């Protein structure tokens, strides 16, 4: 087949789908881009030792504060460590902490909220007042107080964040279950004779899971931001662990060596934007009402 024929075939095939593709791109283009960014960061975290030939913590005072070059793509920091390498390794900490906080905190909060809504009565009232109470404290201040009290270190900071993380999931899960429990299929399941645990986990949760997935996605970015902030304040990782927030902190006085603080900050920005794009797209996709608008 000649090139011309191929081109005609391709044009024919694309006539309908082209418009559809444009529409898809406009609607989900950002979300797809976000997913790609996250995937790239996840790969970077996993394959870090194969991506760079430097080690993140090897000090080389002779080559300190080198400008970005072919040898050091993003320059070196005050101790002569390769910034590119540290940014790549930093993805490990940030992603791991983000997932740990959101998945553990989210699971705990969701379970609590769902049980509260299903149990009703005194248990529901007590649980929801407890979440109201947690909402009185701004997460970063409470996490800061707890992190300071427990002592510095990744694990303790994660614990501090978990303490302040679950309430929003509890609130959302409760409202979702309340919305579902009065629907007919729940009554039907009860009539058939399923027990409350089966109804909650096998019937209600799958039907109410959409908004939770959206919250989890948006929240992953948020958790990464908060952890980086705590690290920036010196309440996160223990040096010399490569971590984006503490790298920005190390470079904040070096205005003329802008690369030391700029690139780890860009790393945070891109990964958080990635999660926000995906979360935004998921919300549109899961909510037909919003999609129509």
């Amino acid at each position: 087949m000649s090139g011309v024929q191929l081109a005609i075939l391709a044009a024919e095939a694309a006539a309908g789908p082209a418009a559809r593709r444009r529409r898809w791109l406009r609607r989900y283009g950002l979300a797809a881009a976000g997913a790609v960014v996250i995937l790239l960061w996840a790969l970077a975290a996993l394959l870090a030792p194969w991506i760079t030939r430097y080690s993140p913590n090897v000090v080389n005072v002779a080559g300190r504060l080198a400008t970005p070059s072919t040898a050091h793509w993003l320059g070196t920091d005050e101790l002569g460590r390769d910034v590119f390498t540290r940014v790549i390794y930093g993805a490990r900490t940030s992603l791991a902490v983000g997932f740990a906080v959101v998945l553990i905190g989210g699971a705990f909060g969701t379970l609590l909220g769902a049980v509260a809504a299903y149990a009703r009565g005194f248990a529901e009232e007590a649980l929801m007042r407890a979440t109201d109470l947690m909402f009185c404290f701004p997460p970063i201040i409470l996490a800061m107080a707890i992190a300071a009290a427990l002592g510095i270190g990744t694990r303790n900071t994660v614990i501090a964040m978990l303490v302040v993380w679950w309430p929003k999931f509890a609130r959302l899960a409760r409202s979702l279950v309340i919305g579902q429990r009065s629907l007919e299929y729940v009554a039907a399941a009860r009539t058939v004779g399923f027990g409350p645990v089966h109804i909650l986990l096998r019937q209600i949760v799958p039907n109410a899971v959409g908004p939770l997935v959206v919250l989890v996605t948006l929240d992953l970015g948020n958790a990464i931001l908060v952890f980086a902030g705590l690290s920036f304040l010196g309440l996160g990782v223990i040096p010399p662990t490569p971590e984006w927030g503490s790298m920005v902190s190390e470079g904040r006085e070096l205005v003329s060596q802008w690369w030391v603080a700029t690139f780890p900050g860009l790393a945070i920005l891109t990964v958080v934007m990635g999660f926000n794009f995906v979360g935004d797209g998921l919300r549109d996709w899961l909510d037909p009402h919003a999609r129509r608008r």
Partner: protein
Amino acid sequence: MLRYITSRLLIAVAMVLLATLVIFLIANMVPGDPVLTQLGDIAANNPAMVAAYRHKWGLDLPLWDRYGIFLTGLLHGDLGISISSQRPVLEDIAQYAPATVELSTVAFVLALLAGLPLGVVAAMRRDSWIDHLARAVSLIGVSSPTFWLAFIMLAVFYGWLGWAPGPGQIGADQFPPPVVTGFMLIDAPLAGQWDTFWDAVRHLILPSIVLAASTLGLITRTTRAAMLESLAQDYIRVARAKGLLRRVIMMRHALPNALLPVVTLGGLAYAQLLTGTVLTETIFSWPGLGRYTFQSAVILDFPAIMGVTLMVAIVYVVVNLLVDLSYAMLDPRVMHK
């Protein structure tokens, strides 16, 4: 109305009381030992000194006794004495709060001035370039790390271009005006120090923009969504059928109804700004509560941390109360539920 207000007030008081308990428990249950952090290495190795120190600050009493003392003190407006500054925590808070309120209020006004029109226009011209711009602005605003944005702003506008002054509330060449209200923007003109006033205004620009960034994103998104919701209602169709001007429909019919969720979010966003200044203040050397909180947290100054956290919780409860009440005013149906 009266019954609604009373019940909301009672709930608010109960929340504050519970908050004191939570703060007290956190400060006392954690393994970090403020005594060892405060005393030097030599003193910390001397049991007699440690015991004397514990006794002096009442750290040797049983937990519930200490909570009782803490509560009694609170009722007399006594938040305890800061271990590091050796002054009553309430005095510290009173000294640092105005700078924070000033900064967050300016940032909040900035975010509103930019976010409301952007959200409205984005909803009116959906899928146009301005809608996409609004989306991009809000996503970037929500996603950028405050401390990094602050670094970039300082590096570019102070270090590189030299357009903005450096960190701090006023320049080193300015004398602080005598304290009347504690607000620099009010005290300086009162003392006739207009130079200081303009200097303070210039120092406010960068930190307030940094602080406004994430709030701007939230306000734009909420306004847009609320406007779209409101535009889809029947009364808009009626207004259109009557042949009213598009401008009148937008401003008189759609916008007032779209403001409800914006009021809720705005209240919470303002409370968040008041308390979200830790990072911004630390970087801009801003003499406010945020920096004070950070400095207290690092040295485990528990009376100070407890005092600030409690103040913050009270601000949250009060703002929530005001939001609820203004909601009831804007939408009378709320009260009858």
